[in-house]
């Protein structure tokens, strides 16, 4: 047998992050408890930084490696770099230890029974949860592989590798543990179901094309080999699996429950990074592998895009919980990105890449602010408690206001540039009706984002309102990076837009 050639150099960013996950597990096994947290944080941050340096070094690389199963090209590297930066900031929020006296935001032992003696003792001992770091490293590795996967099997493996650690992370909240465990259970069951759809669909497409590689599938589409029914059923089922991860309507039902129940730090990480990885994978599958039948899948995605935007915003209007509101808002943003998705061209790819990066920073920042507004029971997420927050702590409320304006797409924020680019791409791709729906829905959305700002600044504070926790430098730095990125990408989007345009070419 001739040994298969594996381009280790191009795969190095992923190898570093996965390696850090494995080393992290060994740290859990061998390093004494009191050093573990420091070692894990340093290991995670160092690995993410080293991987980012490698991604930058690889800039401009275009190869299909690992015997056709992984493609390292512009979009893959752009998304890998963005995931690494966003995960780096997420680790800041994970490492925060001042908000919860004597611990971080995670249950000391996730397997202890909520409300039990064991849990009480662990909290008293100030036991720290450190397994979150190896888990998130493995998830980040999966997220980096997902948009780079160039065959159906690699894509499925990446989907599972990124999902499984997230299911566990969702169930690890320190406060409201039953809600958190319920969220993890729901996410796991529905996620496993969606993964089943994906792999079942992949088997259909394999049956049609006789190959798992996207290039071969594309060739089979051109050759018109027959069995169209098999192909279309497979494409539909794979779309279910991917749209679930994106949180598109009608596969969005898990999003509000999971975003609400999961520890807010994990919600931030998940909302920013999973969506990004899933859109990357979806672009590669639909553009590279299934571009030949775009007229067949475009109508489906038109419908999904419209439903996602409308349902996301309309339901967000009636939410009274800030985390659920942000969850529905994230659903709607998935819809905005889908409007550009249906216009299959380089402009659309660049627009989506930029939007995902801009959206990631805003989401991280917004959820991080939520972690700071607290009352006796933990985070005060009910909207009524946020009334008058602007008078009590103007700086925090103003920062949150900035993130809300960015989510609404107000000029001079990254959200505006992002929306402008995706709508332009959709318009040029001939999806005028989608753009009209998108703009109308954005106007409605602006109403409810501004409503929260009005609530924070112009209503009287609740008599027994929440207090704003003073975080350590970790969270402060993370929120600051999010806020600066939001403004810089809004005022000077040029460099990142140029980078996205340069990166917007899939290798085939």
């Amino acid at each position, binding site marked *: *047998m001739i*040994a*298969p050639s594996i381009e280790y150099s191009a795969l190095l960013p992923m190898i570093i992050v996965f390696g850090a996950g*494995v080393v992290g*597990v*060994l740290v*859990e*096994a*061998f390093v004494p408890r009191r050093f573990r947290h420091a070692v894990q944080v340093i290991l995670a941050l160092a690995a993410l930084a080293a991987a980012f340096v490698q991604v930058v070094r690889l800039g401009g690389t275009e190869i299909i490696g690992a015997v056709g199963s992984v493609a390292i090209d512009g979009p893959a590297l752009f998304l890998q770099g963005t995931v690494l930066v966003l995960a780096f900031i997420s680790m800041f929020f994970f490492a925060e230890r001042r908000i919860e006296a004597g611990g971080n935001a995670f249950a000391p032992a996730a*397997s202890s*029974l909520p409300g039990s003696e064991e849990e009480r003792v662990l909290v008293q001992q100030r036991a720290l949860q450190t397994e979150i770091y190896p888990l998130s490293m493995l998830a980040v590795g999966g997220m980096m592989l997902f948009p780079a996967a160039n065959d159906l099997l690699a894509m499925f493996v990446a989907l599972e590798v990124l999902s499984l650690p997230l299911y566990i992370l969702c169930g690890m909240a320190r406060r409201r543990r039953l809600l958190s465990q319920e969220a993890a259970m729901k996410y796991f069951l529905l996620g496993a179901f969606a993964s089943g759809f994906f792999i079942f669909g992949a088997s259909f497409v394999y049956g049609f094309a006789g190959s798992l590689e996207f290039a071969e599938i594309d060739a089979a589409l051109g050759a018109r080999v027959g069995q169209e029914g098999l192909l279309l059923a497979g494409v539909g089922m794979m779309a279910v699996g991917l749209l679930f991860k994106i949180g598109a309507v009608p596969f969005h039902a898990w999003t509000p429950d999971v975003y609400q129940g999961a520890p807010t730090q994990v919600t931030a990480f998940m909302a920013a990074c999973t969506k990004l990885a899933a859109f990357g994978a979806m672009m590669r599958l639909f553009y590279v592998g299934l571009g030949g039948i775009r007229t067949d899948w475009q109508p489906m995605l038109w419908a999904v895009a419209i439903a996602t935007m409308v349902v996301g915003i309309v339901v967000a209007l009636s939410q009274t919980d800030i985390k659920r509101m942000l969850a529905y808002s994230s659903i709607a943003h998935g819809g905005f990105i889908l409007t550009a998705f249906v216009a299959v061209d380089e402009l659309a790819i660049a627009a989506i890449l930029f939007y995902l990066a801009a959206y990631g920073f805003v989401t991280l920042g917004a959820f991080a602010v939520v972690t700071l507004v607290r009352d006796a029971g933990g985070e005060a997420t009910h909207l009524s408690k946020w009334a008058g927050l602007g008078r009590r702590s103007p700086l925090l409320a103003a920062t949150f206001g900035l993130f809300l304006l960015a989510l609404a797409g107000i000029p001079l924020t990254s959200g505006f540039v992002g929306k402008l680019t995706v709508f332009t791409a959709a318009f040029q791709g001939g999806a005028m009706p989608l753009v009209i729906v998108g703009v109308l829905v954005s106007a409605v959305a602006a109403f409810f984002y501004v409503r929260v700002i009005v609530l924070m600044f112009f209503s009287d504070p609740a008599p027994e309102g929440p207090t704003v926790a003073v975080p350590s430098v970790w969270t402060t730095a993370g929120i600051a990076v999010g806020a600066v990125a939001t403004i810089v990408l809004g005022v000077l989007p040029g460099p990142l837009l140029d980078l996205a345009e340069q990166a917007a070419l899939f290798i085939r």
Partner: protein
Amino acid sequence: MDLYAPMIGLIILGAVFAVFSVVVSTVIGPKRYNRARLDSYECGIEPTPQPVGGGRIPIKYYLTAMTFIIFDIEIIFLYPWAVRFDHLGVFGFVAMVTFLFLITVPFVYEWRRGGLEWD
């Protein structure tokens, strides 16, 4: 279609056998009822008492299952590799050693964290 004929035959055979067994055993089987007959497993062993009042199933079940999976996966991949060892060459050997290392990591983790202590 010929390709599927044996499969369809097997499916029909299986269905007929299942229906036949159930029907025949209810028709000609003896009908005696006692306590053991109504137990979960009908084998004489008392089933483990279920945790009451929000108690929990001992975590050892879960740990045993996880340990089983570690070795199970290991063996499943080792067998085909061992059979084709001479064809897979150095690349196959290195890949297998990497795999064995990675699969040993969770085992080491379980051992160090006390998962193998059966008080």
